[in-house]
């Protein structure tokens, strides 16, 4: 049975569909007939943009209020599948809510999930997924051997978003059935951590700091260098966990995936968890005092030295050039 219908779990904000949603739609429409499964207060308003990116239908679960989306969206999706209008493949963004939805849907349909997907290839009636292993040094190919729908959780920046000028997606209400205790969590308040300059996952230059900075007070030089290069400041998980910088700065497996023109890693050793998030950068510069640090194995230019000496001189030199 060939691949026909492909769903994309669509995340939307006031500004429209998120970038990863559009990336997944680009792949979905190449695989078959793309449909979006949207939720939240901004889903319906995004039907136009979703259509431009290839979605023919928007199954709209509707506003979930202050609930976390996982249980509700999974219940609505399962109801559609059980009602016979399910897809062959479901693409889910590797985001906080995306992983919740995929996990709960997997149980409701009793089908497995394949996660950390970075590429998908249709092979006749089969779909092969690709995954980076061990920090991306090896690529594994996997596929499902059981019944459809096949649920793939896909990492950001695996595909390029591109509008194709389709008509607005036809909106079809997809209300969730009763979810009982599973839908007990409520959001009491939402906190947005403001940051200036370009967005981390869209910046042309990313300057990141790690444990080698020695203390939260030294992160200022990372921000200054990023600012001089019109880039964004990032961080390793170690210093986010240590509370030096907010989570929104984190690059890596559980943080953002970045692919800038140049990535400058300052005082970052290069744990697998970090490499996964930045190894796709076009150019990598690493500054670290430990010459055996794994980051040097992926760096186009490695400076073995103290970040506290190299970075201030670099800032000075860039300032002198104006």
């Amino acid at each position: 049975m060939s691949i026909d219908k492909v769903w994309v779990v669509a995340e939307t904000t006031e500004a429209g569909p998120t970038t990863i949603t559009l990336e997944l739609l680009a792949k979905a429409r190449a695989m078959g007939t793309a449909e979006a499964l949207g939720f939240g207060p901004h889903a319906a308003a995004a039907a136009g943009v979703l259509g431009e990116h290839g979605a023919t239908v928007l199954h709209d679960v509707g506003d979930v209020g202050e609930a976390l989306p996982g249980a509700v969206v999974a219940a609505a999706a399962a109801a559609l599948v059980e009602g016979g209008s399910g897809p062959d493949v479901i693409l889910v963004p590797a985001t906080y809510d995306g992983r919740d939805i995929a996990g709960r849907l997997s149980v409701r349909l009793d089908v497995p999930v394949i996660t950390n997907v970075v590429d998908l290839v249709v092979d006749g009636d089969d779909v092969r997924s690709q995954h980076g292993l061990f920090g991306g040094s090896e690529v594994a190919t996997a596929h499902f051997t059981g019944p459809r729908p096949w649920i793939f959780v896909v990492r950001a920046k695996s595909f390029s978003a591109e509008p194709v000028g389709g008509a607005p997606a036809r909106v079809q209400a997809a209300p969730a059935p009763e979810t009982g205790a599973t839908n007990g969590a409520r959001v009491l308040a939402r906190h947005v951590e403001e940051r200036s300059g370009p967005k981390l996952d869209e910046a042309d230059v990313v300057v990141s700091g790690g444990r080698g900075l020695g203390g939260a007070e030294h992160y200022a030089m990372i921000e200054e260098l990023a600012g001089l290069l019109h880039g964004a400041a990032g961080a390793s998980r170690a210093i986010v966990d240590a509370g030096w910088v907010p989570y929104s700065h984190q690059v890596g497996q559980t943080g953002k995936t970045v692919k800038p023109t140049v990535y400058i890693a300052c005082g970052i050793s290069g744990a697998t968890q970090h490499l996964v998030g930045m190894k796709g950068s076009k150019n990598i510069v690493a500054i670290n005092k430990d010459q055996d640090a794994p980051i040097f194995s992926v760096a186009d230019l490695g400076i073995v030295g103290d970040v506290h000496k190299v970075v201030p001189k670099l800032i000075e030199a860039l300032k002198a050039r104006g």
Partner: protein
Amino acid sequence: MNVVVCVKQIPDPAAKQALDPQTHNLVREGKLILDDSDAYGVEMGLQLAEQAGGGEVTLVSMAPGGETSGLRTALAMGAAKAILVSDDALAGSDALGTAKVLAKAVDRAAPDLVIAATESTDGYTGTMPVQLAELLGLPSVTFAKKVSVGEGKVHVQRQTESGYDDVECPLPAVVTVTAGVVEPRYPSFKGIMAAKSKPVDQLTLADLGIDPAQVGAAGARQEVTGVEAADARSAGEVVVDEGDGFEHVVRFLEQLKLV
């Protein structure tokens, strides 16, 4: 308050990792250790039980060969007891199969709160805890960076793309914690000695009434068909800073026309 913490015993991540060339499963030879990511959950569970003024932490784990060395580390930190599911038929289990097994084991402990890491260090699928919650019919709050409990509810600061949400959830519930939610304690000598005699209830699939076809490689209904070396990203020029390291960076940026 009784807390279950799901923990994984994994090969030392500092050692070289490899896939079995035949099965494409992660090679799990040698001693297994407590996944570092789980130390945060164990610590969180211990603190919440202490703050509630009673109750205990029960560990739930699934591992081959009756492996307990990672469990002993968590018991030494202060967990009261452990349930370990070990069965040859579990080899090759995926996240859903694992969740089915752990759900049966967690049910036995009848906890007020279930804690797990957001993802394991070795497999990092990050879906198991939510699958567990759905199987148990419980609500879940993932990616907690701060957790407190009071009046039958758990309060969580949950990471989001742009910051964090304050989330409230009735108990019982499943919460996944990030590294950094709390600072894990080091086991004391006394704790290490005490851990040796703490009960580890070892169960098989038959004990839990699970059909072996539902779990293991058969239940996974997915397979890795091949593994290849990625397009190698080779190391470039490495320069030892003699006070002029910054100049190399400036020239590199010039070539890219970024300055």
